[in-house]
């Protein structure tokens, strides 16, 4: 399982990198998004991914003590925080890039004001 995840994360990072190196502003932003997504997947992977069962969801409402072993709720909480933050960042980056496009009057990042 880990191997499949590792390859996925690696692929997402690689493609994100490739996008970051484009001249098209929009693609650069996609690259940023992709890398953030990949980082989140990576975090989840670190918690140890098991095939989901009703027990492994870290919600205890349906259980009684002693609680069953769930997946690592810590990484989930971290990822949740990270998703929110990267969402804020991406939204800002989008608006910013739009403004940068307006000011510099081109989508080509190589032609921007130094």
């Amino acid at each position: 399982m880990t191997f499949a995840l590792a390859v996925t994360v690696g692929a997402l990072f690689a493609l994100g990198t490739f996008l970051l190196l484009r001249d098209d502003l929009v693609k650069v932003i996609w690259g940023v998004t992709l890398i953030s997504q990949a980082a989140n997947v990576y975090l989840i992977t670190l918690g140890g991914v098991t095939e989901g069962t009703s027990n492994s969801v870290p919600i205890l409402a349906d259980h009684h003590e002693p609680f069953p072993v769930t997946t690592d709720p810590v990484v989930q909480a971290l990822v949740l925080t990270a998703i929110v933050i990267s969402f804020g960042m991406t939204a800002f980056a989008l608006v910013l890039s739009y403004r940068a496009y307006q000011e510099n009057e081109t989508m080509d990042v190589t032609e921007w004001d130094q």
Partner: protein
Amino acid sequence: MNDVIAIAPILMAFLTGTTALLVRSFPRLQQIVSVAGTLGYAVTVATLVWRVVFASDAMSIAYQVGEWNAPFGITLVADGLSVFMLTITAVVAVYAIVFSVRFIDYRNQRVYYHPLFQFLLLGATGAFLTGDLFNLFVWFEVMLMTSYVFVAFYGNSSHTAAATRYVVLNIIGGAFMLLGVGGLYATTGTLNMADMARTVSASGTEMGPVVGLSALVLVTFALKAGLVPFQFWVPSAYRAAPLPVVAMFAGATKKVGIYAIIRLYFTVFGNATLPTTVPGIPSDSLLAFLAPVILVMGMSSIVVGGFGALSCDSLDGLFAYSSIGQIGFIAVAIGIAAATTVAELRHVALLATLIFALHHALTKGLLFLATGVIRDAVGTTQLADVGGLGERSPVFASVFLVGGLSLVGIPPLAGFFGKFLIFDAAGRQFAAHVTGDTFGAASAVVVLIVLLLGAVLTILYSTRAWMGTFWGPQTDVIKTGTVDSIEVLILGTLAVLVICVGLGFEPVYQFADTAAEAAVDTDGYVKTVEFGGEGA
């Protein structure tokens, strides 16, 4: 011991930021809130410093947020190192905000300038105080998010372009930090830094990946500190942001990167025995791996920053490059500290780091704000357009001269002690290797030569800045412009502070000494955090 003073600076900045946001419709009130809040922040920091460093029963303070015991809740730790960095931040913040009120256009101040400034302060403060790795990431992001806005603040083509580059690089940095933090959690099973220190010190844990992961995290820290080759964002971002905020960038946020490097690698991983094999450095710790990396980064920063500054057309650009170079000096000192296994030399090198950081914050703060005065007076900072300002305003010239001389490292100004201690550390490193160890001696000589080169370049660009601005025939804009005397007055007090830090260096030294002790005192750090519950 849950003493609320340890969290007080964070709360203060948070409260001020929120209040400033609420009273936005009353600009006067907003300014008052912002300035008063920053002063209040400084007071809480001063109290904290007193409690942690100078009081008779001084000791490090830990704070458990939300009643959860370490390592399960989030811990804040105020030890010598943290409060030293907080002090730097507080001083710069007070000057920056007071100067802003005068400097930033009245209408522009209303555009959320004050709340954002407070959130920037909040982010930096949180990063200095937190004892939790993921929490560090969160405060980093708070700080970054605000700095993005400030870089893009004026919204023209160059500002937005600079901000876009800055954002892209830092999002990469954020992703890498997430990878590193997550990896460290997976490897050590904890996010609490004290707990992590405890875990890695214990034998029997599989520590292999920690070296690579720490390198990942280092990328983020170096990006924040603006070390070569992560310095790319610095010149354009510094030129774009409002100058008081640039003073904050140079004085506080860059130091967050430096602080994080010291905290994580010296305090947390300082005791860790790791299976590293690095030729030339006799140590089996993580630092042995990081030492050459940080040294090379630092030396390249000195070279790139120093050379870059030489031919800049504008004052703010020149000082931006200078910042890269000066951070390089700091990094070299860290590198020396990491490369040695001798406790005394490590202490001296860390001391040099801290003193240089303090000096750089004050001096560069002064110079960036002075650049602001010039822009305010004549509307430009292009060296070609200004000239002969010395005759127009001798007092302002003296203030600037103090900053310039401190940057060069002329005694007895603050800058001298930074330079002196770094040379001292490098000299000791050389002395330790000169007999017998040819490789060690040669690398120490290389370090010394780069430091000398950096210092010479500093003289070159400082004189250039000085002569271009204050000497020479008066240009038209200088003839017609007026220097704002209140701004000069504010800066005058900062110049006096730069002089006083040098003349009254003893207490400053004591303070930094405590901070440097704390930086390597892993056991003390762990002990400060009282573990409860099942973790104990």
